[in-house]
């Protein structure tokens, strides 16, 4: 083996990725070649230089609590906070099932009321009314055009939090994190001396939460209603239900305001912003204009969760214009950028309905 061939194999040799036969040949060459041996030493030197600045113990002390805080905020919307029982997965499932069951009961009530009572007016279907019913409202008479599954999904698909600005790194002193660092991927058989200490720090942190860290959830409310199709009475009824739910909800409501169309939006989204305009236009069935506004919204400054939801909303707007190929492209983009995207999962379930009835009320918020 000559120097040229050896040098092409040095990288996999250094990384232990070379088959045994080639490895033996490279070793043999290195024994008699100081030049190639020096190159191999360089590879090791580069590896020693490859490090990541460690944020330090104070950062790790708060890390888990911050994750849990964010999980709480993002996984559970205000309405879910009212409904949820203890238990993670079950809690999440109930967020679908309870509003769906309530909505189903509501529809059953409408059918019964309209069909059995002599002289009762035939229930009419308004152009656009949808709202996941509050637990206590299941028996109340209401018109309901949107399938209950859609109403139920709505409460889930909107729970996305906005982040509070992280600070500027104060210093960028570099501390290479070497392979000896203990708390790496568990499969690696490495020193674990500090793992205990690290975990103890995390465990000791259970009480304090970092309220300053993350901002409130934008558009996280499931109480999304198309005002166009709602009577004064039903609007008042909706507000009453919201008031009932509010005290039990997380204090996230403090960060929200309500738009004229009944959509709850984060305070920081100004009423004239493209994002807000897109939703308002969609409510008015001006889908093409809504698409333009949504594209402008996506071209602006958005955090990752908002962008994820915004892209899904764009896909829906495209579907509503029967531009299914364009929507497919957007969905593929969401898939690529946001693996396991919950809003996308939800929309996929709704999509056949949207494609069948492109004029219906938007399901994505």
């Amino acid at each position: 083996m000559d120097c040229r061939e050896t040098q092409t194999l040095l990288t996999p040799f250094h990384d232990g990725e070379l088959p045994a036969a080639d490895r033996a040949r490279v070793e043999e060459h290195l024994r008699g070649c100081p030049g190639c041996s020096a190159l191999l030493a360089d590879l090791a030197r580069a590896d020693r230089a490859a490090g990541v600045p460690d944020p330090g113990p104070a950062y790790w002390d708060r890390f888990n609590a911050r994750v849990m805080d964010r999980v709480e905020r993002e996984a559970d919307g205000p309405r879910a906070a009212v409904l949820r029982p203890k238990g993670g997965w079950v809690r999440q499932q109930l967020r679908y099932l309870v509003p769906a069951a309530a909505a189903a009961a509501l529809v059953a009530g409408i059918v019964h009321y309209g069909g059995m009572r002599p002289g009762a007016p035939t229930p009419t279907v308004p152009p656009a009314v949808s709202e996941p019913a509050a637990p206590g409202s299941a028996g109340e008479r209401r018109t309901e055009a949107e399938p209950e599954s859609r109403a139920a999904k709505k409460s889930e698909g909107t729970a996305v939090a906005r982040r509070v600005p992280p600070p500027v790194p104060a210093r960028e002193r570099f501390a290479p994190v070497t392979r000896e660092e203990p708390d790496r991927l568990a499969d690696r058989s490495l020193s674990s001396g500090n793992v205990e200490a690290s975990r103890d720090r995390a465990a000791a942190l259970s009480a304090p939460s970092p309220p300053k860290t993350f901002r409130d959830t934008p558009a996280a409310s499931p109480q999304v209603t198309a005002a166009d199709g709602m009577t004064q009475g039903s609007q008042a009824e909706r507000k009453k239900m919201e008031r009932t739910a509010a005290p039990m909800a997380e204090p996230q409501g403090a960060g929200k305001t309500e738009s004229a169309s009944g959509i709850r939006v984060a305070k920081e989204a100004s009423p004239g912003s493209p994002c807000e305009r897109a939703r308002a236009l969609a409510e008015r069935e001006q889908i093409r204009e809504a698409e333009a506004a949504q594209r402008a919204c996506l071209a602006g400054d958005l955090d990752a969760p908002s962008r994820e939801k915004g892209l899904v909303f764009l896909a829906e707007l495209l579907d509503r214009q029967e531009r299914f190929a364009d929507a497919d492209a957007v969905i593929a983009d969401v898939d690529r950028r946001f693996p396991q995207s919950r809003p996308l999962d939800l929309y996929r379930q709704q999509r056949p309905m949207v494609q069948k009835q492109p004029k219906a009320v938007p399901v994505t918020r």
Partner: protein
Amino acid sequence: MRTDLDGEKDERLAAQAAGGDRGAFDALVTRHRQAVYRLCWSATGNAADADDAAQETFVRVYRSLPSYDPARPFGPWLRKIAWNCGLTVRRDGNAGVPRAAGGDAPEGVDPAPGPEESAAGNEERRRVADAMAGLPAELRMVMVLRAVEGLSYGEIALTAGIPAGTVMSRLSRARKRLLAALGGGGS
């Protein structure tokens, strides 16, 4: 709070976490947070964005746990999410995330250097930091996963979604650029 989760396998912890066991999820976070942070740092190249992406990674993991199949290895699944979160934060250019002091993002500070540490040592560290930060994310990522995390080409390929041969060529380029930045070698 927890008793002894050290011996637990990730997959089992993930299954428990999917069932609502917050302690198991906490253990998963603790076991992987530093590796996730490093991977996110390699995608973003700075501490504040790495923090953002690392937090987002675990939120996504939590949300996705019900659909996670414990028969599949947890590590690659987690790394894939972390890398994508890192790229997303980078691609977004941290839009809407203004930089302000007073939060919880890391300051890029390791335990304070001891008095024995010389100015020359600090200078060397700064040069190393600059060299790493100056690499393109794709090269930084393979360097971190290989040289810091000790992953195989196959594991890195799985995370990055590239062929193993590309991992090797990127490693080679990354090392050359690092050596060039550090002075000497890498020619």
